[in-house]
Structure formats: C-alpha cells, structure tokens
C-alpha cells in the first residue's frame, strides 16, 4: 500500500495531494499540463522533497517532514517509467534492463534482463543499442527496466504519449498485463482520460495541484462533480466482448447485454470508446433510422449538467454513458433524470481497444 499525503509549492502551483494505492492496483492521475502531475511522481520517487507531509510504502516511511525522514531515491527503488523513457544510450538494451538488478553475477543479471525482454515480447533486442529502437520498443525497454528490480511502487509518466496511435493501442494491453503481474502499487499520470480508463482501476482528476474527484472511470464519466471533471473525462468507455458482425463490421456484446457495432477489427475482451459529442439522443416516439451501421441503445437519464451552451447528459445503459448535446436540444427533449431515451451513434465513431 502506497500512502501519500503531501503539500508543496511548485512554481506558481500549490500542490495538496492525498492518495492511497493498495498493492496490485493502478491509480491514474488525469489532469491538464501544468496541473502538477509529474511533481507527484517525483515526490513519491524521492526526486523532489515536498514542503509538508508524509509518504509511505507498506507502512515504511519514505518521507516525513515532521519526523525528519527523507529516504533517498536509490533506497526507495520505485520503478519509474519516464516520459522520455530516459534509456542509457551508452549501454545495450539488456544492460539497461539489468541496471537496477542487485546481488547477482553478470550472467545472472543478463538472465533476468532477458526474461523481462522475453515477457514484453522484445526478446531478440537484448544486444541492441537503445537509440536504434522504435518508440514502442523503447517504451517496453523502459518498462522492463523499471520492473526488473521487483519494485513495490511503479510510477509511469505519460507512458504512451510518445507513441503513434497504432503502437499505443498495442501497448495498452501489454502495459496492463505487466502491471498486474508486478503486483506493485502503480501510479500513472496522463492527460488522456481514455488512456487512464483502460489502464487503471481508479482515476483521480487533478486540477491545479488538487485532486477534485476520484473514482472508477465510469463513475467519473457518469457523475462528474464539476464541469472540469466532465471536460476532462472525454470519451466514454464501455466494456464488452467483440466478435465478427454483419457486413464486415465488428459486433461487441456489452457486459450489460445489448450489442453495438464498430468499423474497427478487434476480438475478445474490448473497451468500446465513443465521444460524448458523437452521441445523439432521440425521444422514444421518434421514428427509428434505417441505417444498419448505427448503434441504438435504450438509456435512462441520470444527470444533466449544463456547461456553457452545451449540456452533458449522464445516461444509464446498464453501463454509464455520457452524451453531450446543445443546450437547446436538451431543452427540446425535456431532459431530466429518470427520462427514458434512445442514444444513437455511428459504428464509424466507435473505437475499440483490446483489454
């Protein structure tokens, strides 16, 4: 269990953070740039001393301003995946991975490094130099290096942001699996809610150095406590099982029962992404469209939050779903909690992420 309760000033930002992450779980901190995300990770790793507070891992104090405890980073041994990956170019890939492994012979360290590279599917790259690798390969080397010393806490700073869209999708599943296997308490920071939703069990939304809301991704999306959280959450993520559907489309049977279609090809367990502004709402009496590539779900309105000229509508479709409509159409549809509607969006607006 990682416990953090710190206050500090970073530049013009007042940071005040309280969070707890049990072993084996991943917490994602989502916030815009400049909200203090990286400072939190640096404080946990011991690369930065907060002004006040306490940080402990499995009951052992790493930092305690009052008790005058400040364990240096080399003794905390947090697995840290840096945003730029920070690979040592003068070393080979396996030497990077073995860098933090202690108490073994050279061949023993090589074996551990090779095992990690194998596990992350980059076994043959051990003797290469990091600068000759692709972005996705570098990210996996950085992950292997962070996990190889068997850390109790793993910190990830925008682990996917340097990757192209396709590599990103592939990496998500591997990253989840690797973090699960490690059994560490993991903290991940990102500006991308969708990334947080698929990688972490719980998501904390950070605004100007403070966590404004914390919960599962669907809790945050369904009932944001503020317009800021609503804006931050971005895409909806539903879960289900994908299989080939009609006319070359993929059909996803949602965990809540109904099925939706996507133009993307995936199979097995998937996350279904759809942006709130892609969803239109129809009253029950409206004539159903004839377009077979449309997804239609029966939903119940759970909340209506007006943000400027838009209305964010919390929906219950068995799973939480958010739609964003203009304030005018919200008024026309007489949206209020408890109302039953049909949510409609295109198969081509439906992204799939393998879980």
């Amino acid at each position: 269990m990682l416990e953090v309760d710190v206050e500090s000033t970073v530049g013009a930002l007042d940071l005040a953070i309280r969070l707890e992450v049990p072993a084996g779980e991943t917490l994602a901190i989502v916030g815009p740039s400049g909200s203090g995300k990286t400072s939190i990770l640096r404080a946990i790793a011991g690369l930065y001393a907060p002004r006040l507070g306490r940080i402990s891992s499995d009951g052992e104090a790493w930092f305690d301003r009052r008790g005058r405890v400040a364990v240096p980073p080399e003794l905390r041994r947090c697995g840290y995946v840096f945003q730029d990956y920070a690979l040592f170019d003068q070393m080979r890939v396996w030497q990077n991975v073995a860098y933090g492994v202690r108490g073994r012979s050279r061949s023993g360290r090589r074996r551990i490094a090779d095992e990690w590279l194998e596990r992350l599917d980059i076994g043959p790259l051990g003797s290469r130099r990091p600068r000759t690798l692709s972005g996705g390969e570098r990210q996996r080397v950085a992950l292997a290096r962070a996990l190889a010393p068997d850390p109790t806490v793993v910190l990830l700073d925008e682990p996917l942001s340097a990757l192209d869209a396709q590599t990103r999708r592939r990496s998500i599943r591997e990253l989840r699996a690797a973090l699960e296997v490690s059994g560490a308490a993991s903290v991940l920071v990102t500006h991308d809610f969708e990334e947080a939703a698929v990688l972490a069990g719980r998501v904390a939304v950070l605004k100007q150095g403070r966590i404004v809301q914390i919960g599962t991704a669907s809790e945050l999306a369904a009932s944001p406590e503020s317009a800021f959280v609503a804006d931050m959450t971005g895409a909806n993520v539903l879960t289900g099982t994908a299989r080939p559907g009609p006319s070359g489309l993929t059909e996803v049977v949602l965990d809540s029962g109904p099925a939706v279609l996507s133009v993307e090809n995936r199979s097995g367990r998937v996350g279904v992404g759809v942006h709130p502004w892609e969803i239109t709402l129809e009253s029950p009496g409206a004539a159903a469209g004839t377009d077979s590539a449309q997804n239609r779900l029966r939903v119940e309105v759970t909340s209506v939050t007006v943000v400027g000229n838009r209305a964010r509508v919390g929906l219950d479709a068995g799973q939480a779903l958010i739609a964003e409509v203009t304030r005018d159409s919200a008024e026309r549809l007489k949206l209020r909690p408890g109302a039953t509607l049909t949510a409609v969006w295109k198969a081509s607006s439906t992204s799939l992420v393998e879980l």
Partner: protein
Amino acid sequence: MPAAIGGSRWFRAILVVSLALALVFLTLPVLAIFVEASPRQLISSLGEPGATEALWLSLKTSMIAIAIIIVVGTPAAYLLATRRFRGRSAVLTMVELPLVVPPAVAGIGLLAALGPTGLLGPALGDAGVELVLQTAGVVVALTFVSAPFYLRQGVAAFETVERSLLDASRTLGVGEALTFVRVAIPSAREGLLAGLALAWGRALGEFGATLMFAGSYRGVTQTAPLAIYERFGTNFTSALALSALLIGASGALLLSVKLLGGARGFGNAGG
C-alpha cells in the same frame, strides 16, 4: 547542403569563397613548415641536443597537467552544470577568466601567487615545494592556462545530459556518486573529450606563462615552444624542424583523443 528551390547563386558563391579563404589562410602556415623543413633536416634536428629533450618535456608536463585537469575539473564541471546556487554565474566567470588573461599576465599572476615572495610562497617554501624554475612550475603554468578550456566544455557537456537519465539511475538504486561515474560521464563523453582536446592543444602550445613563471632551462623547464623560440634567434632551420615535430606530435595526440570519442564525437566537437 541540398540547394533549395530558387537558391541564389551569388550567395552560394560567397559561402564557398569564404570557406576557401579560411581554409587556405589557416592551413598555409602549417603546410609551409613542412615544405620548408626537409625530411633530412627533421631527422638531423632530432639528433640535436635539447630538441628531443624539449619535446619529451612538453609531452610529459602536458600529460600531467591534463591528468590533474581531468581529476579535479570533471567533478567541478558536474557541480556547476547540475546545481543552481547563488553566485553560480560569478563562479563560472571566474573559472573562465584565464581564457582572456594574456599568457604573460598569467605568468606574473602565478609568480605573485606561488612565487617565493608571493601570497602562498612562504607556505609552499615551508612545505618544501619549489615551483619557480622547476619542472613542477611548468605543470602549474600549463594547468592554469588550459584548465578553463576543459571546464567550460565540461559544464556545457554535463548540461546537455538529460536530467531524467540521472533520475532514472537513482530510482534504480544507484547513488549519486556512482550515477556520476556510470551515467553522467558516459553521457557527456563526447563533450568532455572535445574539451580535453582543446585543453591539451592549449597546453602543448603554452609559451608566455611558462616563460614568466618557470623560465626556459634546457631539460628542466624548456618545453618545445620555448626551445623553438630559443633557436629562432640563432638557427631558423632548426626552429623550423622542431616546429614540424611539435605539429606532428600534437596532431597525433589530438587525433587519438578524437578517435576515442568515436566518429560521432568528431562532428560534435564544437558543441
């Protein structure tokens, strides 16, 4: 350089002519020495008493100076590059000061500081250390004038090392001192070697400060440049031959330092 569309011919001509002028002007004197000194003269000058001695003294004293500069200068440059503290820019300026001090003034300064009647003279005398008119004095003079070249380049080199590399090493269980050795120095290697080449070149060519502080005694303080100057007054051919030898020796040293830095180091040496 691939020519962009519409690139003007006259501008390209200016660039080419400028480089050609610089190249001719900068290499002509060096070439002239080899043209004027015949191979036979080179060989016979090697046999001259004092010539090989002076060359050997130059190599020995410059290597000792460089060793001192590396051992003290590398951690000093690391501190200046990685820590922000009050008066940092003043410290940077002070360690770079010898770059702009004329060598003769440096010699006077060394005498005033370390000479028998200088600031630290009595203390050094009590400790049995004599520098003036001694080989050790040559090393002091060389160190003084060439260290700033290494320090400057070293600070710049360490500043380009990504902070996250050092942080990564720490989070992987390696302390600050070992991180310096295992990550910072290898990452800054190219810049450090470029600084080393500059400092060594400066040390081999040192003349004024050595003459003022250590004098020009054959076999004791007369380095190759001083020996060349001595011959210049009496025997130009001999001065020419020794100059050619010095160029050959420094060229070989600089080349080996650059080769250590690898082919990539060559391109970035200016950094």
